[in-house]
């Protein structure tokens, strides 16, 4: 039975059939109104409840993730801060060990200088011995005026004056000698003063350096306290620091990848001389894979070297090794790197030789001999390629530092991204729950709108029945009250 046959079941007229079918559907829909309303409400409520629960659980997961992120951030910050404080204390220890261990010697040196200066000072303060006491008596006699009548007395007195003057000159010479010695002593004191001044300046420098370190430690301790107390400002600072580290490390890694690509191109072609130029491995040229493996081994060796030097802390096993093993590891990784760098330099040389051979062959085959570079200029490119081949492996060693920062900051960034995704999903489900609720109400109203004619008839019939009942009730009440009055 086709649709048109069913449609025209009641009448041949399309319009009449439409009316009949509409009436039938409307009546059936009216009869099914209550169960349909219940079904729509149940479905809407079910979807709303499921979405709300999903949204709540996502919010819960997001909160847990945020807490975990915060824990990780705080732990990382705490570790970094502890490391910094530890390093500062180590520096202070070194200052104390190196500089202040010399303090007793310095003290003794300064004491010696002070004692020497003191002695010199005392010596310089000594007064030269005075002329004997009887000289005054002789001087008085010598000053007696000479009598012209008695030449004998005059001679005696002249003799006395002469001896007095000689005595005075001798005393003056002694005094001058003494002064000279004092000056000499004072002059000798000068370097001692200078030495002491320098020693004191040195002490001042050491003490100031120590004070500076202690101030840095104070600042870092304050930050550490903030981190330990898990303050919001500490979290914000750590989060922002992580983001900065992530982008900076990513940028440096991109540069390192560029270097690795150049390195790859430098050794891939000559590698064909070692492993063959036509073989394939996993769909790629064996020579290319071998070149890639060499570069990756160099990066791995660089990581181990940095780890052994305790510059990075990606592998706790290496960091916790005994010092003797660590030193061995440093030498082994360095030797491998040196070997690989030498191999790369050799390959770079080979590359140049091959390039020249290819150019010569092409020129001889195609007849373009002028395209070959002159012999005198060749050494420049050869030397440059060899230099790059030797240096790039060592440059790649330092990839370990940004890599560590990148890995550590990635944890925070991924956590933030995951939390953001969870929050967005929770919001989406919340919106879906509300949409479901209002869609249910809307569908109920639309359903009623479709059957508005039977509903209107129902309300009219109910209204007339209700008014008749109320009228009967009123009449009976009125009769009863009249009777009571009477």
């Amino acid at each position, binding site marked *: 039975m086709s649709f048109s046959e069913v449609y025209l079941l009641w009448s041949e007229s399309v319009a009449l059939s439409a009316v009949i079918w509409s009436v039938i559907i409307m009546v059936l829909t009216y009869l099914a109104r209550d169960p349909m309303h219940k079904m729509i409400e149940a479905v809407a409520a079910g979807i709303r409840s499921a979405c709300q629960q999903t949204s709540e659980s996502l919010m819960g997961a997001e909160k847990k993730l945020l807490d975990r992120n915060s824990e990780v951030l705080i732990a990382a910050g705490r570790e970094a801060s502890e490391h910094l404080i530890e390093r500062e204390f180590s520096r202070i220890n070194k200052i104390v060990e190196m500089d202040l261990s010399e303090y007793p010697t310095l003290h003794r040196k300064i004491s010696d200088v002070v004692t020497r200066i003191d002695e010199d000072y005392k010596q310089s303060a000594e007064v030269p011995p005075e002329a004997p006491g009887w000289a005054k008596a002789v001087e008085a006699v010598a000053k007696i005026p000479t009598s012209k009548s008695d030449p004998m007395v005059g001679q005696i007195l002249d003799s006395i004056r002469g001896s007095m003057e000689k005595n005075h000159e001798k005393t003056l010479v002694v005094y001058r000698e003494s002064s000279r010695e004092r000056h000499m002593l004072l002059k000798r004191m000068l370097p001692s003063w200078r030495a002491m001044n320098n020693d004191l300046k040195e002490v001042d420098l050491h003490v100031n350096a120590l004070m500076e370190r202690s101030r840095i430690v104070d600042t870092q301790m304050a930050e550490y306290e903030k981190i330990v107390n898990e303050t919001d400002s500490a979290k914000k600072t750590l989060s922002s620091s992580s983001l900065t580290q992530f982008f900076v490390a990513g940028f440096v890694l991109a540069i390192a990848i560029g270097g690795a690509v150049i390195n790859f191109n430098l050794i891939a072609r000559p590698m*064909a001389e070692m*492993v063959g130029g*036509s*073989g394939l491995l996993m769909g790629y040229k064996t020579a290319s894979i071998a070149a890639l493996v060499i570069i990756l*081994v160099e990066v791995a060796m660089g990581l181990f070297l940095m780890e052994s030097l305790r510059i990075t802390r990606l592998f706790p096993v*290496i960091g916790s090794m005994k010092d003797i093993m660590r030193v061995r*590891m440093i030498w082994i990784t360095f030797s491998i790197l040196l070997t690989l760098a030498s191999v790369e330099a050799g390959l770079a040389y080979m590359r140049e030789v091959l390039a020249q051979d290819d150019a010569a*062959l092409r020129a*001889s*085959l195609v007849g373009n001999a002028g395209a070959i570079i002159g012999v005198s200029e060749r050494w420049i490119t050869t030397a440059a390629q060899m230099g790059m081949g030797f240096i790039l492996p060592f440059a790649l060693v330092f990839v370990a530092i940004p890599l560590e920062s990148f890995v550590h900051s990635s944890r925070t960034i991924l956590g933030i991204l995951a939390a953001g995704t969870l929050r967005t999903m929770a919001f989406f489900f919340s919106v879906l729950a509300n949409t479901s609720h209002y869609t249910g109400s809307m569908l109920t109203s639309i359903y009623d709108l479709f059957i508005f004619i039977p509903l209107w008839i129902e309300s009219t019939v109910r209204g007339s029945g209700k008014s008749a009942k109320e009228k009967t009730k009123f009449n009976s009440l009125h009769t009863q009250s009249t009777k009571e009055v009477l």
Partner: protein
Amino acid sequence: MMRKLILTAIVVTLLAGCSSKEELPHTRGVYMLLDTSGTYTEELVKAQHIINYTLAKLSPGDTFAIARVDTASFSEKDIVAKVTFDDRPSAANRQKRQFREKVDHFVKEVKPSSYTDISGGMLQAIEYLNEAGVGKKTILIFSDLKEELKKGYVRDIPLQVGGYEVVALNVTKLRSDNVDPREYMDRLQMWEQRVQSGEGSWRVINDLERLDSVISD
């Protein structure tokens, strides 16, 4: 830790040392037929340019062979020079130089043949390239495509050139072609049909300035 390092070194060495030899789908094989009949030998200088160009384009691991087309070409004796280039680029370059010397010597010493057995040469080329096990197979026919067989030679054999690219180079017009160009067209069409019925692809390149499309990198 030391054991791990040694193990890593061994793995790296093995990885660097192993290369697949049995399957070479990326290698190319080129077989070139040189028509030495009559006055066409004068065109062989052009063929030298094509050979040099092809040598410059081929890489280590590729195969290249040159064979003359004479009275009876279905023979290894007609192969003038053949080589499968070494894996190492430097050795491959040496081989290319030696190959060129052989070709130069051949072009100098070549004597015209009485008949032109192109079909025999094609059959020989198919056999050789199938045996070489190369990935991409190309047959270059440097000829005017005018086949002249000695009495008694049977060459109406279907060419099994599925996966082959057959390129006719420098198909010169004969005096009779100038009188009636249909002869030339019929000749080209006949070869095209033979190749395509053998599931091969067919091309004609007369302008030797467009050789770059013959051997792609």
